[in-house]
């Protein structure tokens, strides 16, 4: 490839970086709070809820994300068109399954849903570990000072959990930025998609290396950001 072509390719890839970042950012936005809720559900004293949550986590962590994406994506049209689908559900699914010009919206939503469900399970296990690592004495001291359970969680426990879960979360987040490339399998137009297409057009591996460089830079930036965050929270032990 000529340097002109490479420059053009670079510009093209920058355009396709946006969908990658969109999937990445949206996944974090939903998966982190959901992960916290799932962690609390798993620790819930009401056992059936705890077991159900655990089953969800086991499935999400025990099966490939790619499989989950495909299942979520095809679940709506498959269930809708099945003979045994109740009419009410069918109307609902028809409203979810946007077609034609809105097909891209449907695709993004379904891919995002699969990512969020999967990553929430991983975050949940990290958060649960973090919450359980806080000594019982912290809860007792808070109770003696008259804090409510909610105040104790948000003022005393959560800030300490955040510090403890940063290293493990950092691994997940960096894995996520690379995992966004799986969306390529559904035809989601992100960096992998354009790299593969240009590879065929130019019969060259260069687009793939460029795509790799993009992921590498994003992962490195994230590593640095998490390093900074860790340092920022280093003021106490």
């Amino acid at each position, binding site marked *: 490839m000529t340097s002109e072509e490479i420059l053009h390719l670079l510009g093209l890839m920058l355009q396709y970086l946006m969908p990658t970042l969109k999937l990445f950012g949206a996944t974090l936005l939903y998966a982190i709070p959901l992960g916290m809720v799932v962690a609390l559900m798993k620790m819930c004293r009401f056992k059936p809820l705890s077991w159900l949550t655990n089953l969800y986590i086991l499935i999400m962590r025990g099966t490939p994300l790619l499989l989950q994406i495909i299942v979520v994506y095809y679940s709506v049209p498959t269930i809708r068109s099945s003979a045994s689908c109740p009419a009410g559900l069918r109307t609902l699914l028809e409203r979810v399954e946007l077609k034609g010009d809105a097909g891209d919206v449907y695709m993004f939503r379904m891919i995002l849903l699969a990512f969020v469900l999967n990553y929430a399970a991983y975050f949940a296990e990290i958060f649960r570990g973090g919450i359980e690592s806080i000594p019982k*004495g*912290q809860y*007792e001291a808070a*109770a*003696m*000072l*008259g*804090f409510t359970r909610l*105040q104790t969680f948000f003022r005393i426990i959560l800030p300490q959990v955040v510090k403890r879960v940063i290293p493990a979360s950092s691994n997940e987040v960096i894995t996520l930025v690379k995992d966004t490339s799986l969306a390529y399998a559904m035809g989601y137009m992100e960096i992998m998609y354009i790299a593969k297409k240009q590879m065929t057009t130019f019969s060259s591996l260069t687009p793939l290396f460029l795509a790799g460089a993009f992921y590498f830079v994003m992962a490195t930036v994230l590593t640095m950001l998490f390093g900074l965050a860790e340092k920022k929270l280093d003021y*106490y032990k």
Partner: protein
Amino acid sequence: MANMLEVKGLQKSFGELDVLKDITFDVAQGEVVAVIGPSGSGKSTLLRCLTQLERADGGTVSVCGEPMLTAEGYRDTKTLHQIRLKTGLVFQNFNLFPHMSVLRNITEAPTVVLKTDKAQAQARAKELLKKMGLEAKADAYPCELSGGQQQRVSIARALALSPEILFFDEPTSALDPELTGEILAVIKELAAEGMTMVIVTHEMAFARDVADRVIFMEHGVIVEQGAPSQLFGDSASDRVKQFLARFNG
């Protein structure tokens, strides 16, 4: 003198294990009571039941004249909360909030729980720190302090809510021997100011020195209680004598 604490027939078991059996005692206003006894005798459980960290299985408890646990059971949540604010507990291992500065450790509960004005809470916290000889440490974090300093902060934190009665569970047991003195000095000062206190301790010399009354517990019962001169001088109980001999010998 009014009783700040009235405990009658208090019982607590963990499964099959009866940890507290029929505990009865009162604490008068301004009185300092030391609770001694071998480890496993139920001293911590007693304090934890009196401070609502543990639910007792039977008996009655009144704090500052307010029934907390009656024959009908525990009072409603709101009343229990009000009663809890009258009691403070100083833990063996401090349990300071590590992510908050020393000042914030002390002001957090007054501002959040009592809705005290922030400036006022800070002024009070600084006053308390001064009293603890820690005014220079207001902006430090707990991990930067010695054990003795951390324990003094935790006492200040408990005092910030102006409790009517203060419980201590072996406040010097986690400290190096050379640091226990500073904590005992603080407790002595509080005693001189008329603070009502119940102190579980292994510091026999201190108990003898500062307590108005000593309670000896074993196997979940009060074996003997009385003035320090009585228990440490010529106890009626051989068991008490035997226990104390270990410390004197």
